[in-house]
């Protein structure tokens, strides 16, 4: 057991580090996060992505022909470890590069790949994912947006929702129902779509936090050429599943208040004339969060160890989001409660901001990219091998599945 890089890995880390030092500033502790999706944030993110692309870091595991450097999984991790130590804009490209990229890589034609992948990596064109619908959340396959074939094109009508970044995206990947007479999972087809197409209307959704990172997207007679179909007609679910698998890898650790913040805070915060850290209940909670935080950190190290040896990691990383999102919520809650009545007040204090922001943001994290409940189902079925739930929607034409609305 050791925590050392191999000589090649150490060399690679040095290369990453050197480039980052020449092109970005180290994290200073003070966060200068501009609000997500603001024009300032967007511009900074585009600039940073362009710089990375020019040097080969944007999608480093991709083939050289699309702008990558054909890096191994462990090199990819080393890069992101190093990049995370620098104060660079985040949050704009994760979905496009993490989910749309792999699908395009697997299903698009050679010409399309040459046309779309390099600008995607360079950040010139931003991509979003159009899956969820008002009546299809955890049950994504319940989607009812409709595509009707008309010669060499398709006419799409319907509504998508929770689409992150749709307000500034150039392209999107889309799964829709082409035949409601078929079984639920067989009547879907997958496309990519130009977000500037006539008939697409994007309406931002105001969230609990007050911000708007995601949107409703309406499709009114939107025309999509058949050449933009990914996979065969009726293969929509299969293609979507590939994407969702990538999403579960992309959505990981919660950012926000963690055990170090709670610990530091508790040492300074008053609790009836004593430091809060002397309070038994506070100590008990901090011990629990420390075990969770380090359990996740060490789980990640185990995954990396497997990758580092060229082995396939076990399923252990599947616990990450359930644990971290709940921990985030509890720590935010702890920080606010420690202020008693004043916990309601907004403040310029960065810790108070962090606790309140974490507490308000955590409910979203417990839902996005698979709810706590869906993730537990996945652990139970895929990791522990338990049988699927009995379902009312199998072997029935989609149009005949009960909806509760009719």
């Amino acid at each position, binding site marked *: *057991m050791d925590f050392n890089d191999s000589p090649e890995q150490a060399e690679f880390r040095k290369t990453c580090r050197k480039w980052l030092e020449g092109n970005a500033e180290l994290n200073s502790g003070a966060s200068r996060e501009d609000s997500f999706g603001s024009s300032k944030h967007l511009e900074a993110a585009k600039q940073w992505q362009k710089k990375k692309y020019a040097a080969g870091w944007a999608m480093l595991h991709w083939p050289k022909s699309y702008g990558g450097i054909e890096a191994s999984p462990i090199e990819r991790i080393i890069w992101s470890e190093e990049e995370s130590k620098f104060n660079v804009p985040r949050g704009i490209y994760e979905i496009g590069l993490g989910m749309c990229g792999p699908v395009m890589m697997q299903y698009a034609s050679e010409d399309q790949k040459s046309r779309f992948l390099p600008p995607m990596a360079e950040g010139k064109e931003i991509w979003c994912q159009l899956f969820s619908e008002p009546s299809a959340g955890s049950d994504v396959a319940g989607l009812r947006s409709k595509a009707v074939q008309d010669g060499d094109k398709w006419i799409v009508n319907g509504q998508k929702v929770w689409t992150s970044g749709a307000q500034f995206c150039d392209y999107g990947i889309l799964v829709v129902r082409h035949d409601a007479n078929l079984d639920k999972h067989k009547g879907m087809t997958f496309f990519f779509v130009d977000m500037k197409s006539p008939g697409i209307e994007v309406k931002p959704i105001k969230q609990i936090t007050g911000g708007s990172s995601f949107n409703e997207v309406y499709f009114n007679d939107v025309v999509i050429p058949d050449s933009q179909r990914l996979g065969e007609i009726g293969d929509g679910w299969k293609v979507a599943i590939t994407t969702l698998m990538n999403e579960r890898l992309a959505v990981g650790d919660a950012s926000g208040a963690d055990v170090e913040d709670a610990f530091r805070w508790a040492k300074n915060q008053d609790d009836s004339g004593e430091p809060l850290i002397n309070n038994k209940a506070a100590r008990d909670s901090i011990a629990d969060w420390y075990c969770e935080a380090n359990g996740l950190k060490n789980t990640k190290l185990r995954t990396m*160890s497997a990758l580092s040896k060229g082995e396939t990691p076990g399923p252990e990383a599947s616990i990450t989001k359930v644990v971290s999102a709940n921990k985030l919520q509890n720590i935010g809650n702890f920080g606010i409660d420690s202020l008693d009545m004043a916990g309601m007040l907004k403040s310029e204090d960065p810790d108070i901001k962090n606790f309140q922001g974490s507490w308000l943001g955590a409910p979203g994290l417990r839902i996005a990219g698979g709810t706590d409940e869906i993730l537990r189902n996945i652990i139970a079925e895929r990791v522990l091998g338990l049988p699927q739930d009995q379902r009312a929607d199998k072997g029935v034409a989609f149009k005949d599945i009960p909806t509760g609305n009719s």
Partner: protein
Amino acid sequence: MNLDFSNDQKFLQEEARKFLEKENSINRNRGVLDSGHNTDTELWNKIVDLGWTGIRIPEEYGGLGLTHLELCVIAEELGRFLAPVPFSSSVYLFTEAIIKYASEDIKQDILPKLISGEVIGTLAVTEEFCAPTAANIKTEVSNNLISGKKIAVPDAGIATHSIIVTKSDAGISLQLINHSLDEVVVTHQENIDESRGHFSITLDKAPCTLVGDASNGWDLFESLMDQAAVLFSFEQLGGSQASLDMAVGYAKERYAFGRPIGSFQAIKHKLADMYIALTLAKSNCYYAAWALTSDSSDLPTAAATARVSSTKAYQFCSKENIQTHGGNGFTWEYDCHMFYRRSKLLSVNIGSLGKWKEKLVSSLEQSNKN
């Protein structure tokens, strides 16, 4: 980056698993519970023959001279198969104390006998129905004679020797005693997991030998607890995994309402939570194993983190395993209760959850100061 055991260590673990499976260790545990014998001496002798009691003992004393990592993988298997043997008392506590603190004379005398099985040891600290502290130790040593009474000493019935935590004018010290002396009386005390008997030890001017320093014995004890916590954690990890495996197996086979109960989300989510607790514990155990073997200054924190996570995981997995089995889980006939009992024994041995949470936060405060 390599937070994993080596291939040799994994091979050793595989061999240990095969051995304990073949020996039907879980059934032996039931046999010990039913018979009231408090330990399976036949299984213990086979374990001694395999050399496991000498894993960490240096080669110059006839041991295998291996690291704690080898002990960790064995511990995990002993936990998985509920081995009803005094391994934790004799190896993680007594042997480690001798290796760490004893004089050369004692090592020459005792270590080879621990390897051969002639000596089995345990550690006696508790005196009252509350957690032991440096302040509430009353057992006194003077002129190398101990007087006092220890209670709830695991495996003292089969043990030939003990390390006794004592006090004197100089402070707290660790003392080695031989159970065969007339001045030492070992008496069985009924407990809630009789597969590992608990005993009182009454000492009436019993001759003893000092192990380690005569005044700072409590620090030595605490340091011994830190490393023992890592080994106990691995044993707890094995028990957690076995409990989860049992629950998963039953949930697939047991039908209710016309379907396997494992297809119900109420059961799925419970088992997923067991997997989550187990995975967090496992990863923290691996890190603690690294900290233990590499003499890291992070050991007190890492050991407490592994210990808290593993205690929580085993308590959770063993109780929810019973729940998943429904009424059957409450019977003597099903194995669930044996894991439930052992989870409690391992979680209060060397100090319960609250104590280790407190140690964890104290160690964070400590390392934060430095």
